[in-house]
């Protein structure tokens, strides 16, 4: 056992980068997956719609922790080596895809249907219709809830500590086990998470309000 010192503080603060890195991976991967799921969810094809709906239902209806476990313990079964980076990244990307898919579906549906009809009347194909007409308008509505969801991603990334991914929470556990100073350790970690999440929350609220004014 050793005392809780400034070295530990820096160790914990340094671990913020892994939380941020993992969250960024989840956001980027989840955005791509989310777009695919949102587009499937609103497509004319019944199979694609059903697929997207079940993905969303399953990921929203089961705990993120269990999703992490399934990927962590499932990878070796299909012959892949378990690497906490890959397991944590894959689980968070899949989870984020499902949630963003559902959020963005709502945003795309908020674009008046007349816009799609007009684009069709102009003989725009699916890709052009989405890329130049529907998605840019949906994007405006989608920004505030997406920023809000980033807070969920950061908070969710803490669960990867349980499968041994050494991000902020895991580092705190390790430092706590070495120093037996739970109070300063967990207060510090909570403060760090707060510093990451609170500005995003405020930003999301601000964007939401601005959108509301613009929509009037």
């Amino acid at each position: 056992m050793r005392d809780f010192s400034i070295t530990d503080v820096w160790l914990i603060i340094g671990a913020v980068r892994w939380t941020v890195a993992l969250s960024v991976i989840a956001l980027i991967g989840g955005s791509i997956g989310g777009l695919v799921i949102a587009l499937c969810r609103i497509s004319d094809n019944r199979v694609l719609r059903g697929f997207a709906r079940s993905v969303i239902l399953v990921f929203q209806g089961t705990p993120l922790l269990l999703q992490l476990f399934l990927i962590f313990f499932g990878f070796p079964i299909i012959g892949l080596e378990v690497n906490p980076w890959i397991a944590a990244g894959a689980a968070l990307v899949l989870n984020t895809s499902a949630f963003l898919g559902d959020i963005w579906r709502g945003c795309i549906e908020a674009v008046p249907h007349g816009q799609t009809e007009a684009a069709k009347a102009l003989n725009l194909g699916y890709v052009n219709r989405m890329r130049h007409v529907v998605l840019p308008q949906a994007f405006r509505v989608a920004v505030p809830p997406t920023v809000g969801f980033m807070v969920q991603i950061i908070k969710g990334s803490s669960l990867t500590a349980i499968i041994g991914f050494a991000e902020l929470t895991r580092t705190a556990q390790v430092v706590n086990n070495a120093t037996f100073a739970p109070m300063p350790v967990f207060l510090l970690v909570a403060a760090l998470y707060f510093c990451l999440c609170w500005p995003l929350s405020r930003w999301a609220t601000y964007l939401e309000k601005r959108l509301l004014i613009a929509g009037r």
Partner: protein
Amino acid sequence: MNYAFQFDAVFDAWPLLIEGTLQTIALSVGAMVIGLCIAVLCAWGKHSGPKPVVWLINAYIEIIRNTPFLIQLFFFYFALPSIGVQWSAATAALVTMFVNLGAFSAEIIRAGIESIPKGQIEAGLALNLKRYQIFIHVILKPALKTIFPALSSQFILLMLTSSVVSAISADDLTSVAASIQSNTFRSFEIYIVVTAIYFGLSMLFMGLFNLCYRRFLYFPGHR
């Protein structure tokens, strides 16, 4: 892929799984009931309390909403005992859950309160109703209809989040899964079954809440 799935070990442990499921439900319902009381108090305080109270409540809500559940759990289970609070893992889990839920639902309930037109509150004042009477009869009940959908998804979210309490080995479905796993080494099988149970619970409660909404809250709204 040459992995032989063996589900027997999992299904042999069915009494444990049922016990775990009941523990998860009990924990979630308990946390929901206490958490909602806290949320209503907070919403009331924010609505009609003095400035310092409003600040305190805002700080509580913002801190809980912007830190991970797991850290809150560790704080209650590891940090608080170091300054003399002695409690079991089960109590710490329950406390974390209702403290967490209180902050999230306070915002929902506040949104419900804000959906009540000012004129109705003024009508209540004109009828010489007391402050708490206005709060219960004029604000809370009609607001309940508005917020019921959000509250029910909050409950399901809470139930799913409750799996995290297994990190401090509090009794719940995921802890049961972890102990079966360490006895049988059938990790994937046990976790897929438990995930399916959680999914079933989500669907069950979603259906139940829809039924309640249609049965009890289907009165004409104020809009």
